[in-house]
């Protein structure tokens, strides 16, 4: 089983990297980009017996910093 963990900055947390990417896109001539937020994708290959609670605990204890980040677990067959 694979689980994709999408880690994103919480709303209201400034994202200097997203802003720099935004500027770079504009510099390349792409108009219409209203906002950019950069995040992180972590793909876990897990034993099928791994519980949702364990995946959640992995996210909270290490993969995301709950002070500044949210996470979303996407299970892939």
């Amino acid at each position, binding site marked *: 089983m694979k689980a994709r963990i999408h880690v994103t900055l919480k709303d*209201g*947390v*400034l994202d*200097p*990297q997203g802003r*720099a990417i935004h500027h770079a896109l504009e510099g390349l001539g792409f108009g219409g980009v209203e906002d950019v937020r950069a995040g992180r994708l972590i793909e876990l290959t897990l034993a099928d017996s791994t519980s949702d609670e364990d995946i959640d605990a992995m996210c909270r*204890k*290490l*993969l995301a*910093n709950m*002070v*500044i980040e949210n996470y979303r677990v996407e299970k892939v067959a």
Partner: protein
Amino acid sequence: MKSAVITFPGSNCDRDLAVAIERVTGHAPIRLWHGEQSLPEGLDLIGVPGGFSYGDYLRSGAMAARSPVIGAVVEAAERGVAVLGICNGFQILTEAGLLPGALMRNAGIRFVCRTVGLTVENAESRFTSLYQAGETIRIPVAHHDGNYFADEATLDRIEGEGQVAFRYAEPVNGSARDIAGVLNAKGNVLGMMPHPERVVEAQHGNTDGARLFEGLARGVLERA
């Protein structure tokens, strides 16, 4: 003063910190590897140095904060042992939950490496007792992820409780309320992005960092 300095894979200010503590206080710290499960008995100070532990993988300080030794550091902090985290050490202490908030990429994206002015906000702590409240000191910074963040309620709380030890006196990295150094609620854990260990001898250009270590050592003698 009995102290220890922890080295993580990728630490690079551990020696500087150990030398600064020895020069200022006259006592050489014990050097510890991050894999230790326990700490020596009777420590007065634990130094968590700057550097790029684990190559800043995942988030700065995230991996080091899960090192075996950190469990012992958290326990020692609960018992009241002084813990000082500098730069990457500050990042490690926030990741370990010993200090509030988080340190994010500098607002200007760039690595900042220069000497900056700091205002001493709290001169009552055991780290800052030899400074004057409101005094401006000059300490070098060298970091990419020093942009202090905490939610507004947390910021209001730590300001109200006197947990802001140092504030930048000039724009540096976009930190919330210009916060450069934070104490825990009990006042025995300090994290700061600037490097006091780099300015302790006349040959360093200034000695504004020396009073931090001197104050710690004096506090230990007074409490003895």
